[in-house]
């Protein structure tokens, strides 16, 4: 029997089966659509929220990178390749508040910049120096500030002030180092708003938004230096009472290796490196039980690598409480005196090696 192609399909014909299936499928689709009615709106809403979050994150990051004052301003200069100083100081908060680049410039005739960052350890300091070298002309001298905890690396969960790093997580050295220390850094980078909202109690995102309106944070940094006009507080007495018979800072192999890497980095870049132990209030020095062990490690490294170490912990400045605001940090007067003392010594001992500026003085 021939099948008339123009006749209406019978239920047994393939066309009819297709149509039935298609009707069933449509009906199933309609049922499913009814069953999940409104789901699309919910998904669309959360997709919109996610898109807004990404947009907001980008807006805040771009805003923070527009800042020209405060620590963000200093970091923006670094990653923008706008520093290009002859002398670069690297280290933690002790570096940050102890080295006045204006005095270094005045005494040596060379340009200077302070890379010091609050509560950073040697591993992060190394990443910061690498980032600096990646974007800027290589300096003539790097001064790496040391402290009793130089060989202690950053612990997981102890990266201080995370939002300060979030706008710069596209810097490979910085990101790699931070993500190795704490895997949560991956969330800072890839989950929108995580770094600004979850990790921040200081509403840093507000600064990022304000920067778009040209409102800059208060300027408390001068060429990366953050002078502290503070008086001696009672923190040290409390600290002394708390630690009792003193405390020990571990000489971690990873910490030693980080300092070694920093020395190698400067050597490979052809940059002169100077290790400096800036003044530390003399009473606090006695509280570090293994101070000898730490200094022995410093001496071993300098003997091996030939990098000089200038130790100012025995300086007369270290005995004057009026020059400190706590046992580790000089106030602005102390920083001025220390920077002058260091600059003079630099001028005297490095005149030949640092080139024309230093010689000129």
């Amino acid at each position, binding site marked *: 029997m021939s099948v008339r192609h123009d006749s209406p399909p019978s239920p047994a014909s393939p066309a009819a089966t297709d149509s039935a299936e298609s009707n069933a499928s449509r009906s199933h689709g309609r049922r499913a659509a009814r*069953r999940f009615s*409104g*789901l699309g709106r919910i998904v669309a*809403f959360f997709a919109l*929220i996610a898109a807004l*979050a990404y947009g907001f994150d980008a807006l805040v990051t771009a805003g923070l990178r527009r800042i020209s004052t405060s620590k963000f301003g200093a970091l923006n200069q670094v990653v923008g390749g706008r520093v290009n100083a002859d002398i670069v100081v690297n280290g933690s908060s002790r570096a940050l508040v102890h080295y006045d680049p204006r005095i270094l410039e005045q005494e040596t005739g060379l340009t200077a910049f302070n890379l010091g960052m609050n509560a950073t350890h040697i591993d992060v300091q190394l990443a910061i120096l690498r980032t600096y070298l990646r974007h800027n002309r290589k300096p003539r001298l790097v001064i790496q500030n040391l402290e009793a905890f130089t060989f202690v690396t950053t612990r997981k969960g102890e990266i201080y002030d995370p939002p300060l790093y979030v706008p710069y997580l596209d810097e490979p050295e910085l990101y790699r180092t931070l993500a190795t220390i704490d895997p949560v850094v991956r969330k800072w980078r890839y*989950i929108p708003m*995580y770094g600004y*909202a979850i990790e921040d109690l200081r509403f840093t995102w507000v600064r990022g938004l304000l920067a778009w309106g040209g409102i800059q944070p208060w300027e408390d940094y001068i060429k990366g230096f953050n002078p502290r006009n503070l008086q001696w507080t009672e923190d040290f007495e409390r600290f002394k009472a708390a630690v009792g018979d003193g405390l020990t800072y571990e000489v971690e192999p990873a910490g030693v290796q980080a300092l070694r890497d920093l020395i190698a980095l400067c050597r490979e870049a052809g940059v002169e490196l100077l290790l400096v132990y800036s003044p530390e209030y003399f009473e606090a020095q006695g509280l570090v039980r293994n101070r000898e062990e730490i200094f022995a490690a410093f001496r071993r490294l300098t003997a091996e690598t030939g990098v000089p170490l200038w130790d100012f912990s025995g300086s007369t400045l270290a005995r004057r409480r009026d020059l400190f605001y706590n046992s580790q940090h000089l106030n602005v007067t102390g920083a001025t005196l220390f920077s002058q003392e260091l600059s003079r010594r630099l001028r005297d001992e490095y005149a030949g090696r640092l080139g024309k500026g230093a010689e000129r003085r």
Partner: protein
Amino acid sequence: MLFNSIEFAFFFPIVCGLYFALPQAARIYLLLVASCVFYMAFVPAYILILAITIVIDYVAGIYLERVAGRARTVLLVVSIVATCLVLFVFKYFAFFTGSFVGFASLFGWKVTNPTLDIILPIGLSFHTFQSLSYVVEVYRGHQKAERDFTIYATYVMFFPQLVAGPIERPQNLLGQFREYHAFDYLRVVGGLKRMAWGFFKKLVVADRLAIYVNDVYAAPQSHHGLQLTIATVFFAYQIYCDFSGYSDIAIGTARVLGFKLMENFDTPYHSRSVGEFWRRWHMSLSTWFRDYVYVPLGGSRVGPIRRARNILVTFGISGLWHGANWTYVLWGVLNGVYLIVSWITQPIVARLFGAVRLREDHPLRQALLIAGTFFLTCAAWVLFRAQSLADAGYIYTHWLHDWNWQSLATANFSERQFIPALAAVVILELIQVINRRVPLGEKVTRLPTVLRWPAYAGFIFAVILFGVYRSNQFIYFQF
């Protein structure tokens, strides 16, 4: 797993997606597996302790229906003792042995304090009480024993309320696991809104206030009277927002999936008496103690002395439930004393108000009663939050000393942080007050999408940006 974690942000949509995609028969297994994953995210081994409680009460429930007479009562007692024994070992062993050793030393006896060196599994008190309510209800004949082990295990472990309640009754929750919950847009959105409100309470209010409270209560001796007072008021809001925020998230999470959990808080700080406060605070626990402790003791249908005793016993146990420390016990007893005193003085207070012509509905009378109740509650919270009785004593005796308005900040809470903290409390109260007159949620739902979505988005962004995420745990987890 914490509700306020990135893990939950992935976990919940996945569970919801699977739940609505699966046929009804498979959903119970999904909920059980999801609940196990949720609980094991804290400490995986703890699930074994939970399993012990589940098996004990599941078997007890079935046998309670089979036996009769004295054997039935014995079985009930055995099951309660066995369930409570788990709680005792993990939560109270150190407390009781420590107290005994301390007591013995008063008489010059030298007793070595035995230690088990174990940590309290999260939410143990909550699921223990939920299990207990099941066996008691089966014993009383109010609930049929559950034969399906999966359903019973899910009833105890249901992840939205597993670690911090609301403590459900079997009559309300067990049957819901057999019902088919279709995807309902309005219900799901309602649940999500409830969750968002809970996150606001927890992240924006409770966790910011917690920074101040933690600083002050860690070393009360290093802070002046004004700081102690602020920290205590902050703690009142912290614990309310922490716990009611958790309950809101739990209720919202369950509602998204189609479950209706009991309400746990009803703006308790708007109460006009301590009795009313306890009817509006942690209602699932208060009613638990009413039904299973206070009423069996004789409740209010006894003479005044026994009634007072019943109140003190109930509140004393309630304090102990909150924590294995004398501070909690005293906190419970103090609340019991408040209730007894307010019960005795109620006619006098009414007469005093009558004498100054302040009728019951007069706003000033209401405000005075609310303020008075809040003050008494705050005074009791000192015991609850203090790390020791000595600290609590110090706070009580130094509340009014050296109020220094120039130095309000603490080590981790700068003066600038008062702005978002106080703003959050004011917004919370405003929304609660407005919500009592005009249901805001319904109002927003009726707005056109073009206004509604920005409102929702704005609220979500505000919670994300003004939230604090460092003190992750919910206070009540430890109970």
